[in-house]
């Protein structure tokens, strides 16, 4: 880890390296979607500027220092940032723009409670340099409210009630008004607690939107189309990644790059060029079968993975790989907050693997899935083989891994010669 070494040898290196970038840096943070949002942003900006970008997802101080170190000659820094690391990085990098996507409950053993992260973000926003641009998701009550902290904040959100869910999901967070504690009412909830909310008691509501997605057309597992409305101009965008949550990622990237000076055509064509970020709805051919890899790491993200798979007529065999290292969250209770049942209803077999495979198997069992169709295979490579064996030739195996399991599985398929290691791909 050159970044860690650098940070130890030269504690001010991050500041100096960041200050050298002629056009400054943009920081992107969110519980879910920051890697994809940053990758979409990179796709939009890369034809015109040279980027320093932590594309492999190393999003702490050391990872960003390493990205800066390896990108001499870059014009712009583009960094996805861990939610807890945002305040420190914002202080040290002096960003030109900060884009904040969403806050969901995630790894309470590591981040602490949601309110705490939100408070730290508010402080970080207050301490931003006056010229820095703030881009926020207006559909998230906690994040959207940060727009009130700065004049000229840029706000994005979805307006298409046809795609609203009927009820807030079980694991929905931020259900209570920030200002008065009364339950919010949603005229439309799109993903978890993201949507068009207002408080009937005190009137707190979603801020006015500057960049909006309308007329959304979900195309199963293939992609999603929407109209990107940037106020004075709009474009039809055809994304090659599916699901409403990717519309949010695309909106975040669009709002950020528009704020950085991109034009609407450049934004739309960049978004259309974008393919999956690694491990996020990534398809990998393995001989005559295919893996469809969706990283899962918290209830909100996993719920969207399930919803998208079910809407897209998902394949019949799933491999779920549950690890409990620090990067995965040591507390695996979050799997019980995920609404797996719609996915389980269409599955023939579940192969559970990873360090906490038995726990995942129990989740399926108590979710009503027949125990005899659950297989626990502790070792990842053996589990992958078993999953592929259950899939007919030409078929697809859905792979739902936590973070460290995703890295390990990718290494296994790379060792077998099917994908490029991500450090080569990212270069």
């Amino acid at each position, binding site marked *: 880890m050159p970044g860690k070494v650098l940070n130890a040898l030269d504690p001010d290196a991050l500041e100096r390296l960041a200050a050298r970038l002629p056009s400054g840096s943009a920081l992107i943070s969110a519980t879910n979607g920051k890697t994809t949002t940053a990758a979409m942003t990179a796709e939009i900006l890369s034809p015109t500027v040279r980027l320093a970008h932590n594309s492999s997802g190393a999003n702490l101080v050391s990872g960003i220092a390493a990205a800066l170190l390896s990108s001499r000659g870059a014009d712009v820094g583009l960094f996805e940032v861990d939610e807890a690391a945002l305040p420190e990085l914002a202080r040290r990098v002096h960003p030109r723009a900060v884009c904040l996507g969403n806050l969901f*409950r995630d790894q*309470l*053993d590591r981040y*602490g*409670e*949601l*309110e705490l992260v939100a408070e730290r973000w508010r402080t970080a926003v207050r301490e931003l340099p006056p010229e820095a641009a703030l881009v926020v998701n207006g559909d998230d009550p906690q994040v959207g409210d940060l727009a009130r902290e700065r004049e000229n904040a840029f706000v994005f959100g979805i307006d298409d009630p046809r795609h609203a869910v009927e009820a807030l999901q*079980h*694991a929905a967070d931020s*259900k*209570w008004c920030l200002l008065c*504690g009364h339950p919010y009412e949603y005229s439309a909830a799109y993903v978890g607690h993201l949507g068009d909310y207002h408080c009937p008691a005190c009137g707190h509501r979603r801020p006015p939107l500057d960049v909006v997605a309308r007329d959304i057309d979900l195309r199963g597992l293939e992609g999603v189309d929407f109209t990107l409305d940037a106020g004075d101009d709009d474009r039809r965008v055809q994304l090659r990644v599916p699901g409403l949550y990717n519309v949010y990622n695309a909106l975040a990237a669009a709002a950020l790059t528009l704020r950085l000076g991109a034009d609407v055509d450049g934004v739309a064509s960049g978004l259309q060029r974008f393919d999956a970020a690694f491990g996020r709805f990534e398809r990998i051919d393995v001989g005559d079968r295919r893996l469809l890899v969706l990283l899962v790491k918290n209830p909100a993200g996993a719920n969207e993975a399930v919803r998208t798979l079910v809407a897209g007529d998902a394949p019949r065999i799933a491999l779920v790989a549950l690890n*409990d290292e620090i990067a995965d969250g*040591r*507390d*695996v*209770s*979050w*799997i*019980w*907050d995920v609404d797996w049942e719609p996915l389980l209803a269409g599955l023939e077999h579940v192969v559970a693997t990873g*360090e*906490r495979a*038995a*726990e995942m*198997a*129990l*989740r399926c*069992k*108590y*979710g*009503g899935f027949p*125990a005899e169709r*659950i297989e*626990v295979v502790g070792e990842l490579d053996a589990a992958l083989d078993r999953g592929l064996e259950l899939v007919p030739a030409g078929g697809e195996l859905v792979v739902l891994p936590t973070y460290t399991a995703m890295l390990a599985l990718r290494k296994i398929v790379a060792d077998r010669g099917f994908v490029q290691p991500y450090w080569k791909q990212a270069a």
Partner: protein
Amino acid sequence: MTELRLAHLYPEYLNIYADRGNIAVLATRAAWRGLELAVEAVSVGDELRRDAYDLLYVGGGQDREQALIAPDLAAKGEAIREAVAAGTAALAVCGGYQLLGRFYRDRSGAEQPGAGLFPLHTVAGDRRMIGDCLIESDLVAGERRTVAGFENHAGTTRLDPDARPLGRVLAGFGNDGESGFEGCRLGTAIGTYLHGPLLPRNPWLADWLLERALEHRLGEAPELGELPDDLEREAHLVAAGRARSRGGRF
């Protein structure tokens, strides 16, 4: 078919550590024995009828949610105490465990009254006690059984001298990180910091609660039959191993 009635207190506020997993285990293990578990949400402003339920469940929440429901829960204290005195089973996890004590004192020294069921109080501490935890309990008379879970709490809970803990800590922090005790037991009621959720990997505890609920319902406790718990045992062993290798460390 015998119907058992469960009151799930404040499910929309107190659900942070997958508390619905505990409810699912109770309902499913009841169903496998030919019993029906009817689950009813009892929330802010609802009356808790003291004789209407065989089992009470209170989960955990974030500080904000706990503060929103604490006054209502304290007002339900008498009904909860009378229900448990009459043999209603109860399980309270994490925040719910704290709130069923006498009071919670926050960092500023302000005291929030609890429901006054468990003879204990909780004081906010400086460091969070986070990690896997393994305890040994004598809940079933004459037997020592282990309970494996995950704890994440800044509050330190002090039992009164005559209070009975749920168990002795084998690995992890427990109530206060010092006493070596975890949780509290009062008759048919159990309070604990252990989530994970608690019951899937500790099915004997789920069955103990169902037996107490049946006893309340029928006046006698029929022995519940064994179930094929291979996956449950494996999950328990893995969680217990995690507690032994990395529990109880700041």
